[in-house]
C-alpha cells in the first residue's frame, strides 16, 4: 500500500504538532502524519480516567505504549498520538541567550549555529500556539520581544510567601511559565487547579497535542495514520533525496506500507529519530542516512538536577495548586566565573516530612485522634521544595546506537542509550552540585529555616541531541533549519537538533526549533493567503 503526500511527518508528539499546524495554516501542501501508537483517549473521557488515576494510581492513558519497544534507560514508554506531551507538566521556560554560546562565553561545550534572537520569534509563536501563561522576569535575566499571550497563573498564597522568601535571599522568583490557560484560550477552559496536570488535565486547560490533531484532522488538513511504525527511509535512485518511508502496521504486521512524499520531517524525538536514520543504512550511506559526519545518534544528553527540601518558620497550606511553582533564571546568566556553573532554580510548596504517620516520636503506634494531632503538630511550619537543573555537556560517545542483541517485533535492532559526560562536564559535576547546595543553604538561612535534605539525581531530564545542528557538515547532522546536510528533502524537527540541552525544561525550545524547521520546509510550497 502506498500513501502519497507533499510532506510526511514521522511522529505525532508536540513538535510534530507544531510543524503540521504551521504548514497547514501557511502553505498549500498535503500533509500526512504517521504515528506508531494509537489515538489518545478523547477529552470527554479524561475526567473519569483521571478519577481512577487519583483513586488507584491507574494509567490515565491506558495502552499508550507499543509492545516490544522497551529500551533500557528510556524516559518513557509513552507512544500514542500526542506523544509524551499528553502527560507533560506544561512547564515552558525558554533557554537563556547564554545557552547558544557556551563555547564563546565560557569555553565549554559548543556554540549553536543560531543565537537566542534567531529563536525568539519562534519561541513567541510556540507560546501563542500552545497558549503559555507567564510573566516576564527581570528583563536582563528573561529577555523577550513580546509579552506572553496569557497572563501568568496567579501565585497562590503559598507561592507568594515563597516568592518573598526568595526576595529575602536576593533571588528573584516569578510564576513559572506554563502552557496552562489562565483564562479561556482557543477553545480551552481556564485552569481550575485540579493538581494533576501531569499526567492528565481533566478539563483540557493544559495544552496537549491532541487538540491540534483533532482540529487539523477535523478540518481535513492532515491525514493521521496511527498504529504504524516506520522501519526505514529509502533514497531515490541516483539521488540523495529521500523517496519514501517503509512502515509496518501494528494491526496487519504482514503488510508493508510505503509513505511517499516530497519532503520528510522526522519528529520522533531524541531516541527514535536517530534510530530510524541508523536503521536506514544502505550502500551509499553504510552508517545510516544523514550520517556522513558520523554524528547521527551522538552528543545525546539532558540536564541533571539537585533537589532540596527546606523547612521554613511559617505555616503553608500545601495543595493550593500543587504543580504550579516559581522560577528563577538568576543562575542561568552568571557573571564572570572561576569555574563554569549554570543552573535554573524552581520552588514549590511541599509536604515533605509533613505526611501523616503511624508512629509517634516515642515509637508508639498512633491511632484515632492521636494520629491526626501528631500530623497537625508537624504542619505548623512549612516546607519548600527546591530543584535546580544544571548543564551537562555530552561527550561524542553519549549516544543512541543500534543494539545488536535486542530487536523490535519486526526484527530490527532496538536503539541503545548510553549517556556519557564530556570530560569537562565530568570534572565539573561535584563542584556544580556543591554550588547548588550552597544556594539552597543560603536560601534556608535567609528565611530562618533549615535544609531538611538534598539529593543529586542522576537522571538526564529532557534529553536532546543525536542529530545536532551546525554549519559544518563534517561536525553536524543538519543545518540551522533542521535540513540534513546529506539529503535536501529530509528535515529533523525538535529535540534531536539541539547542540546542548540547556539547564531548564526544554519542551518549549523543542517547539520553537520545530517551528523554525517548519518555516524552512514551508518555502517548498505555495503560501496560503493570510
Amino acid at each position, binding site marked *: 500500500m502506498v500513501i502519497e503526500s507533499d510532506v510526511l511527518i514521522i511522529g505525532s508528539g508536540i513538535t510534530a504538532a507544531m510543524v503540521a499546524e504551521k504548514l497547514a495554516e501557511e502553505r498549500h501542501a498535503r500533509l500526512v502524519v504517521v504515528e506508531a501508537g494509537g489515538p489518545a483517549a478523547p477529552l470527554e473521557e479524561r*475526567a*473519569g480516567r483521571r*478519577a481512577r488515576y*487519583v*483513586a*488507584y*494510581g491507574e*494509567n490515565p492513558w*491506558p495502552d499508550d505504549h507499543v509492545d516490544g519497544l*522497551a*529500551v533500557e*534507560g528510556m*524516559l*518513557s*514508554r*509513552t507512544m500514542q498520538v500526542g506523544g*509524551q506531551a499528553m*502527560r*507533560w*507538566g506544561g512547564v515552558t521556560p525558554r533557554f537563556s541567550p547564554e545557552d547558544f554560546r557556551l563555547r564563546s562565553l565560557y569555553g565549554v561545550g559548543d556554540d549553536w549555529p543560531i543565537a537566542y534572537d534567531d529563536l525568539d520569534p519562534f519561541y513567541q509563536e510556540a507560546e501563542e500556539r500552545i497558549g503559555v501563561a507567564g510573566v516576564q522576569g527581570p528583563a536582563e535575566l528573561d529577555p523577550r520581544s513580546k509579552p506572553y499571550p496569557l497572563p501568568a*497563573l*496567579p*501565585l*497562590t*498564597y503559598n507561592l*507568594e510567601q515563597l516568592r518573598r522568601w526568595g526576595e529575602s535571599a536576593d533571588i528573584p522568583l516569578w510564576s513559572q511559565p506554563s502552557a496552562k490557560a489562565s483564562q479561556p484560550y482557543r477553545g480551552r477552559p481556564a485552569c*481550575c*487547579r*485540579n*493538581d*494533576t496536570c501531569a*499526567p492528565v488535565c481533566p478539563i483540557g486547560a493544559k495544552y496537549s497535542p491532541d487538540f491540534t490533531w483533532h482540529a487539523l484532522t477535523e478540518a481535513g488538513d492532515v491525514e493521521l495514520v496511527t498504529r504504524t511504525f516506520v522501519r526505514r527511509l529509502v533514497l531515490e535512485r541516483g539521488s540523495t533525496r529521500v523517496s519514501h518511508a517503509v512502515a509496518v502496521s501494528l494491526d496487519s504486521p504482514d503488510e508493508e506500507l510505503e509513505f511517499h512524499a516530497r519532503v520528510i520531517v522526522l519528529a520522533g524525538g531524541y531516541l527514535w529519530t536517530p534510530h530510524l536514520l541508523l536503521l536506514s543504512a544502505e550502500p551509499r550511506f553504510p552508517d545510516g542516512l544523514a550520517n556522513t559526519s558520523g554524528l547521527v545518534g551522538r552528543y545525546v544528553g539532558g540536564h541533571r*538536577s539537585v*533537589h*532540596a*527540601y527546606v523547612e521554613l518558620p511559617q505555616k503553608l*497550606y*500545601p*495543595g*493550593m*495548586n*500543587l504543580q504550579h511553582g516559581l522560577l528563577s533564571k538568576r543562575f542561568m546568566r552568571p557573571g564572570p566565573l572561576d569555574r563554569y556553573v549554570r543552573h535554573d532554580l524552581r520552588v514549590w510548596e511541599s509536604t*515533605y516530612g509533613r*505526611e*501523616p*504517620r*503511624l*508512629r509517634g516520636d516515642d515509637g508508639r*503506634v498512633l491511632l*484515632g*485522634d492521636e*494520629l*491526626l494531632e501528631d500530623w*497537625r503538630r508537624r504542619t505548623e511550619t512549612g516546607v519548600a*521544595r527546591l530543584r535546580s537543573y544544571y548543564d551537562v555537556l555530552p561527550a561524542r560517545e553519549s549516544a543512541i546506537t543500534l543494539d545488536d542483541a535486542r530487536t523490535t517485533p519486526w526484527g530490527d535492532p532496538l536503539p541503545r542509550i548510553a549517556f556519557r559526560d564530556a570530560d569537562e562536564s565530568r570534572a565539573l559535576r561535584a563542584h556544580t552540585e556543591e554550588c547548588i547546595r550552597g544556594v539552597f543553604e543560603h536560601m534556608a538561612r535567609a528565611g530562618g529555616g533549615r535544609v531538611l*535534605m538534598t*539529593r543529586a*539525581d542522576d*537522571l538526564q*531530564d529532557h534529553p536532546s541531541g543525536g542529530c545536532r545542528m551546525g554549519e559544518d557538515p563534517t561536525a553536524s547532522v543538519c543545518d540551522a533549519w533542521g535540513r540534513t546536510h546529506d539529503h535536501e528533502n529530509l528535515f529533523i524537527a525538535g529535540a534531536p537538533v539541539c547542540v546542548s540541552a540547556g539547564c531548564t525544561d526544554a519542551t518549549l525550545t523543542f517547539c520553537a526549533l520545530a517551528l523554525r524547521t517548519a518555516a524552512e520546509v514551508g518555502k517548498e510550497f505555495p503560501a496560503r493567503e493570510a
Partner: protein
Amino acid sequence: MAGLTRRLFLKTLAPAVPVAALPASVWAPASAREALAQEPLEAELLGALAEAVLPLGELGAQGVAAAAREFRAWAAGYRPVAELDHGYGAAELRYSGPDPVPGWSAQLRALELESRQRHGRGFVELGIAERQALVRRQIEAEAVGGLPAPADARHVAVGLLAFFYASPAATDLCYGARIGRLSCRPLSDSRARPAELERRT
C-alpha cells in the same frame, strides 16, 4: 520516606484519594470483581474498626461512618492487574497488585474472633480503647512509619487509615482550612490564605 526526584514527586500524587471529588461511577464494581463474586468488606465490623482508628473526636460518629462507607466503596472498585501510571521517568510498565479485599475481610473476621477469645464479646461491642489495643497488636509489624498507598496496605486497618489520610478532606481537617486539594477551584481564589475550616461542634 519519599525521595526527591521529579518522578517520585509526581508519583506521590497517585495514591491521593479525593473522596468527595469523585463521581459515584468510579466506585462501580469492576467486571473482574463481578466475575469473582467477591464479598465486600463486612460493613458493621469495618464501621467498628473505623471508630477505633480514625479521629472519632474530630470527625464525629457520622463522619467516621461516612469515611468507612467510602473506603468500602473504594475497595469494591479496585481492579487487580490494571495498568498503573508509567509516568515521565518510568520506562517500565507496572500493574496493580492482587485484590486486597479477601485478605482484609479475613483480618476483620480475625479481629472479631480475637475479640471473642480475649474479651468474650464481639469487636463491635468493645470500647474504643479495647478495639485499639487489638488493632495495635495486629499492625505492630506493619506500622513502620508513613502510610502506604491504600491498596498496598497489608492490614485492613492500615488500608483504611491510608485511604482516609490521603483524602483532601483529611488534609483540610489537619490544616484547619478549606484547601480543597485535587478539586476544581477558581484560580483567583488561590491568592488568599485558605478559609478557615469550621470545626465540628
